[in-house]
Each structure stands twice: as C-alpha cells, then as structure tokens.
C-alpha cells in the first residue's frame, strides 16, 4: 500500500513536470502550427537559470521568478527571430527549431560549464508528512500542487477571458480571427512566451526534485513531452494533462516493478494511440 501511494505521488509529480512542458508545446502547436523542437532547451535554461539564481540569493522564489523571466525572454527572442521568419514552412520550422535546441544546450554549457549543477530543496519544502505509516514528501506534493494550479489557471484564462477566447478562436481558424481586426501576431508571440515560461518553470521545479540538473535533461523531458502531446492530442490542454499523468504514472510504476520496460511502455502507449486514434485521445483534428 505504502509503495503504491508513494509511486502514485512520484508519478504524479513527474507527470506534472512533463505537463508543464507539454502544455506549452500543445498550445503553440494548436495556435501557430509550429512544433517547437527547442522546447526542451527552454526547459533546461529555466532549470539552470533558476537553480543558479536560487544558489546566489538563497531564495527559491527568486529562482522560480528568474526561471520564468528567462523563459519569457527566450520565448520572445525565439518567436521574433527564429520562428516568424520561417512561418508557414513546416520542414524549415522543424529543422530550425532543432538547430535552436543545439545552440541552447551548447550555450548552457558555455555559461554554466559542462558539469551538472546540484540543487537543494528549500527548507520549508523539504521533509515529509506522515499519515498512518504513509510518508508524503512535501516537495513532490508541492510540484503536484503547482502543476494543477497552472492547469486551472490556463484553463480559466482560456475559457473565461477575452484573450482566451481569441486564442481558442485562433486554434480553430486564425485567418478569420485576423479578419475580425485582431492582431494575431501579437497573440502568437504572447502564447509562445507563455509556453516558454511554463517550460522554464518545469525546469526549475525539477532541480530540487532530482537533486541535480544537466544539459541533456532538456532533450529527455522533451521526448516525454512529445509522447504526451501525441497521446493527449495536439492543441488540447486537458488532453495534455491526462496524458502527462498517464505517462508519469506508468513511468513510475514500471520503473519500480519492471524497470527495463519503463520507456518502452510509453512508446507502446503512443503506438497504440497512433494506430487507433491518430488525432490523440482529446484531439479534435488529425
């Protein structure tokens, strides 16, 4: 029983981190038709900038804020100088965002050195609670809380605000939105920046969770996020949340019971979804 609860919490926490990445990916894809292969790079940059600033100031909140700002700035630069010039050409977009991924992860090594950085859990989040023999690690619950918070925030914004309405309309038909006199380019930029900031947030939250961060983790998590986006359906936030939890849980349970198969199970899930429902579990269009 204990093991099951612990594994569930582990899986949820990992799932939430993947969700933060996948949510940005799926929103950007749904709205702009751009699959950002550099998203993992933004994740890693968020992690490094956040952990570095946390180490400098001693405040985890400062670390999170630094990561968010890093994400926003990188997102802005990327959208303006990399994605916009090749807008509409899929092959070029795929190629160019992968190029950005290379540059981002190499720059990371230039700025912070090739070795991994270690990250401590802040005091108020370390330790655990105990309920009748079940140990709940605080930091993991914190990640789960933040993940759900971000989800509900985005969900609320999309459903209840004007900007959310524009974004949802843009996902369905961007030409129509533009012809109604709305500057869709501005919305693109905003969504890209928010997506990048979410990825960076995921990165900095991973720091204390895994204890150390390294440049390659960007790609590792990006692959999980791609799997999640495929399973959940492109453009669907709710789908991403469910798929991320599914991938997180299956990862943590498999890693405990059959460690050899933990990644293979996710791939298998994805293959099954692709065969029977290529648009994803929650996707509207193929």
């Amino acid at each position, binding site marked *: 029983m204990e093991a099951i609860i612990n594994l569930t919490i582990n899986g949820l926490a990992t799932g939430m981190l993947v969700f933060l990445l996948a949510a940005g990916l799926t929103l950007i*894809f749904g709205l702009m038709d751009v*699959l950002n*292969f550099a998203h993992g790079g933004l994740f890693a940059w968020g992690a490094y900038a956040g952990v570095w600033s946390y180490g400098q100031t001693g405040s985890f909140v400062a670390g999170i804020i630094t990561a968010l700002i890093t994400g926003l700035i990188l997102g802005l630069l990327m959208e303006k100088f*990399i994605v916009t*010039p*090749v807008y509409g050409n*899929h*092959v*070029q977009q*795929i*190629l*160019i965002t*992968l*190029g*950005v991924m*290379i*540059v981002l992860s*190499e*720059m990371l*090594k*230039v700025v912070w050195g090739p070795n991994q950085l270690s990250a401590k859990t802040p005091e108020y989040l370390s330790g655990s609670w105990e309920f009748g023999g079940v140990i709940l690690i605080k930091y993991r619950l914190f990640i789960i809380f933040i993940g759900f918070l971000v989800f509900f925030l985005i969900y609320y914004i999309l459903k209840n605000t004007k900007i959310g309405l524009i974004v949802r309309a843009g996902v369905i038909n961007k030409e129509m939105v533009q012809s109604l006199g709305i500057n869709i380019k501005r919305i693109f930029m905003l969504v890209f920046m928010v997506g990048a900031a979410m990825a960076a947030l995921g990165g900095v939250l991973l720091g204390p969770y895994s204890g150390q961060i390294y440049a390659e983790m960007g*790609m*590792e998590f990006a*692959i999980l996020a*791609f*799997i999640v*986006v*495929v399973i959940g359906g492109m453009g669907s936030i709710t789908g991403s949340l469910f798929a991320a939890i599914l991938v997180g849980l299956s990862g943590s349970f498999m890693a405990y019971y059959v*460690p*050899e198969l933990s*990644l*293979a199970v996710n*791939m298998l899930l*994805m*293959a099954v979804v*692709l*065969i029977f429902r*290529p648009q994803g579990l929650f996707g509207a269009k*193929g």
Partner: protein
Amino acid sequence: MQRGEEMKLLTGSSKANIIYIAAAVFLLCYPFINDTRSILILFTQIFIFAVFAMSYDILLGFTGIVSFGHAMFFGIGAYSTGILLDRFEPTVPIFLLSIIVGMILAAILSYVVGLLSLRLKSHFYAMLTLAFSGLFLVAAEKWRSLTRGNDGFTFRIPDVFKDRMTLYFITLFLMIVVFLVLKRFTESPLGRVLQAIRENEPRTESLGYNVIHYKIIASIVAGVIASVSGSMYVLTLRFVNTSVFALDVTLDALLMTIIGGVGTLVGAIIGAGLIEFAHHWLTGLAKVHWIFERWMIFFGILYILAVMFFPMGIVGTVKSWFYKRKGTNKTKDVDKEKIAG
C-alpha cells in the same frame, strides 16, 4: 520543379561527370601521395559519414521527410557488426553476414516506424523518430548482457581490415558505389515520384500515387544504407558503445546534408567532408581557447543561418548560380532542356 531541372541540367551534363571522375581519381591516388595515419583515418571517417549523409538525403532532400531518428539505423548496423564479430570468429564472411543482418533489421524497423507514422503530418514523423531513437539509446544502455551498456566493448576484426590503407579504399569504394546506386535510384521513375511528393504531396496523391507506399520505400532505402554505414563505422573503430544511437549522430547527418545542399547527394558528400574536417580542426583548437571545445555552437549557428538564408546549401547555391549564368548566356539551351526534362 525548378530544382529538378537544374539537376538534370548539371548532373546529366558531361561537365559535372568530369568533375566527379576527377575527384574520384584524386581520392584514389591520394593515399600514395600522403599516407599519414591521421589523414587516412580522417578520410575513412569522411567516406563513411558521406554514405550516412547520402542515405539521409534520400529522406530529407528527395522525399521531403524530416527524420530525427536516423541514428537508430546507424546504431543497428553498428551493433550488428560489433556483436557478431565479438561472439563469433572475426572473419570476412561473418563481417559480411553482420552487414546483411543489420540491413535486414534496419529494413524491418524502418518499415514498422514508417507504417506507424508516415501517414501523419511531417511533425509527427520528426517527433516519433526522435522518440524511437531515444528508446533505442535507452535500450542499448539497459540491455547490458547484449551491449555492455554505455562502456561498450572492443572486438577483433578480420585481419584484412587491419590495414588503414585497405580500409581507406574499401570505404571510398563503398561511397562511390552508394553514390552511383542512389543516383540511379533517384533518377528512376520511383525516384521521380519521391521528388513529386517533396514538391507537392496532395497533387501527387491526386494523380493516383499511393504516397505512403512510396514514402515507406524511401525510408527503407535510407534505413538500410544508414545501417551499412554504421557497420563500417564500428569496423574502423573496432569498438562500439551506445553513442552510435545518440542524437548527435542524427544531427551530424542533418548538418552535412543541409550545409552541403539537400537533394543533391554530392552535397551530402561535400557536407560530410566539411563537417568532419572542421570537427577535426576545431577539436585541435580546443587547446588554444576553451570555446572551441564547444564547437557544436558554431555548427548550430551555421545550421540555423543555412536553414534560414541558404536553404539550398553549398551545392544547391552553386548550381542555381551556374544555372542562372547559363540561363542568361544560352537561353535556347535551357529551353531545350526544359522540354526534354
């Protein structure tokens, strides 16, 4: 469309053939002029990666498919050869068998991956191949009884291949053969359909071609040839570890084809030469300044600029320049070519 004409104009012309033959003769004679060990090794490496990059060009340049998992076919060839030579006697027949095993495995894998994902949008294929090759990397690391994990293993190779000079000629020969075979392939009716898919997929489909069928053929051809290059690669190293499955291998192929020029085959060879040379040279410079240790940055930036401003690469740009010049001087000839093509 235009690119096809340019290609016909140039590769069909005797001028280009003379250049190719001259280059081949030069490379055949080169070891007799300069047989420094490091240069021979570098050239062998270039030939092997040229084969790999050409196989990638079939996907990216001729069919318009972006794959981020080409390393898995390279790795399959590499491990087939490594494992068979290690477990059995290191003889030439076993080596040939290992190449065939690699090719068969690569064909099966590319068929399955293609079937699963090629009917989806280009994004999905790029993403899925990335995920699949990630899976192979992890599998190679975890399946220690077969691969000995990240540490890899060394193995003995047939005595014939121990001479650097022999390896040089074998890989050069392989590169020339693959170039000719793929050139023939891309100029065949089947290759023409692939290029039609690259130019306009919906139109090709509405002309009655089963697009997925052709795309799968392209990915099988590319996968099988990539596996051969993987086999040769570990043969020259006498060592194999999980790095053959790493994303870097795919990135190398991408850089080589994009910088050299997509859809030209020669571009892949030139790109392989440039990247391997630069790699060799920049790694040497690491002693001068630490920034050169991160030489991938330069390539990353160069690659982004190439995709943005220079999408035809070196060969493509030279060709279009040549075409334009010829176009202004001898308009009639170009028109004739247009009618013929």
